[in-house]
């Protein structure tokens, strides 16, 4: 039997109106939790992007001059092949360009002015001993070698940022998960109340032979709308707050670490779509639980 669209729409609307305050509570809970989820996802993306080259235990990077000849590069490579060093990765100019493009995705004019041949190739070095002094001594050996432009070691700041980010992401995700659970329960209760308010109608519907799906659709829609509305608010909140975050960050010249922390538009869209999907799932989960538990034939 085809579900009548106008009937379902009307019933859903009147359910939402009838329980306005508790509906609002569910929507706001979904909103807050998804805003937090979105925020921590975007923040994590940003930090991962800016600290990309420092991941996997890399303690220092030997940047070669873009004009270094193969003999000079080989000499550095041989020098790095020592028992004190655990792993070395060579990043050539093309790979460096790819990395650069990823990092400055949101600044197209900067990308235009850069070509692979002006970027330095580099060796990413993972030493066996991670002690700061040892790393410093080790990296100093490469300063001033022919073909070496500069040697940069992972600063304490970068390590701290990585640590805090990890910790904060987990904390925010934890809080957001609890809130999402609360949202599911709130939606479940809202719909249970809506069903209680309509129990006589539901009884008559069953008696005259309305199908289960016909009886359930308005309630399922109600849950879905609550979840989706909360998600929409969360996306709206993130869209509005990103420019503020961007402005309040130190400029790239002051503090280069933050230059790429705002994720590119494409990455942001993925996060937004994810948020909307999660919102709908939360709504459907709450409604589905209510409908299957309290609406037997």
């Amino acid at each position: 039997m085809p579900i009548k669209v106008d009937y379902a729409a009307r019933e859903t609307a009147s359910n939402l109106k009838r329980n306005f305050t508790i509906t609002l509570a569910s929507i706001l809970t979904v909103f807050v939790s998804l805003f937090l989820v979105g925020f921590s996802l975007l923040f994590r993306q940003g930090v991962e992007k800016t600290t990309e080259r420092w991941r996997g235990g890399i303690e220092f990077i030997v940047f070669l001059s873009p004009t270094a000849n193969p003999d000079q590069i080989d000499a550095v490579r041989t020098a790095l092949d020592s028992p004190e060093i655990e792993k070395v990765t060579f990043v050539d100019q093309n790979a460096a360009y790819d990395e650069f493009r990823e990092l400055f995705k949101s600044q197209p004019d900067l990308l235009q002015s850069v070509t692979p041949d002006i970027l330095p190739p580099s060796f990413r070095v993972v030493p066996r001993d991670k002690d700061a002094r040892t790393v410093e001594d080790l990296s100093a050996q490469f300063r001033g070698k022919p073909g070496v432009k500069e040697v940069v070691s992972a600063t304490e700041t970068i390590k701290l940022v990585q640590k805090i980010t990890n910790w904060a992401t987990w904390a925010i995700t934890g809080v957001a998960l609890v809130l999402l659970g609360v949202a599911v329960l709130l939606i479940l209760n809202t719909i249970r109340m809506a069903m209680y308010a309509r129990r006589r109608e539901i009884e008559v519907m069953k008696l005259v032979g309305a199908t289960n799906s016909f009886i359930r659709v308005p309630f399922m829609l109600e849950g879905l709308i609550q979840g989706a509305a909360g998600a929409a608010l969360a996306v709206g909140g993130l869209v509005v707050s990103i420019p503020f975050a961007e402005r309040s960050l130190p400029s790239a010249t002051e503090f280069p670490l933050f230059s790429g922390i705002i994720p590119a538009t494409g990455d942001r869209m993925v996060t937004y779509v994810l948020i909307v999907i999660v919102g709908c799932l939360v709504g459907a989960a709450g409604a589905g639980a209510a409908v299957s538990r309290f609406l037997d034939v």
Partner: protein
Amino acid sequence: MIKLEEVTKIYKGDVVALRNATIEVNKGEFVFLVGTSGSGKSTLLRLLNKEEQPTKGRIFVAGKDIGELSSWKVPFLRRNIGCVFQDFKLLTNKTVAENVAFALEVIGRPRPVIKAQVPAILDLVGLGTKSENFPHELSGGEQQRVSIARAFVNRPLILLADEPTGNLDPSTSVGIMRLLDRINKTGTTVLMATHDRSIVDTMRRRVIELDHGELIRDQARGVYE
């Protein structure tokens, strides 16, 4: 039309509502179910539209074993069975016409069909002029007519009535019985549980008497006792 084969219904705590009942009702029959409260009349009616499942035995409605009906088909069984209750079960926030239209709307009947059938059925039950009134503006007898209209508007094969005159005075009851008789004459099989001695004695239809879940009498053109 309806066939029960050795049907037993036991509720939780070994409460026997129906024991080994075998009943056959033909198309177009009018049957009174009599017996004291708790004798199993309502259980019998609830078994027929699958609101309850029998503990044992088989039930056939319109030739189909309803025990083998999958749960998604139950609504379609119920579309062939109209139900009328002592307490009417009308929706208080809907008018008379809306109450009847609701029954058609929720089974997906198209709007033109609803528009045509609702006034016709309200005329049939004698409420053509009260279609825009709300249930609380009607007398008990009129409310029961609305509920009969709602049960019959879909032209079911069977009409189950559970003490439809239980809340009504004798003269109003006579009117309701005339209406049920008229519906029966259109070919609808009617099963009516009742405590109303004078109605049963006047109508002289088939009487099935239950006592503590046992079928103790099945009499054509019977009386209350």
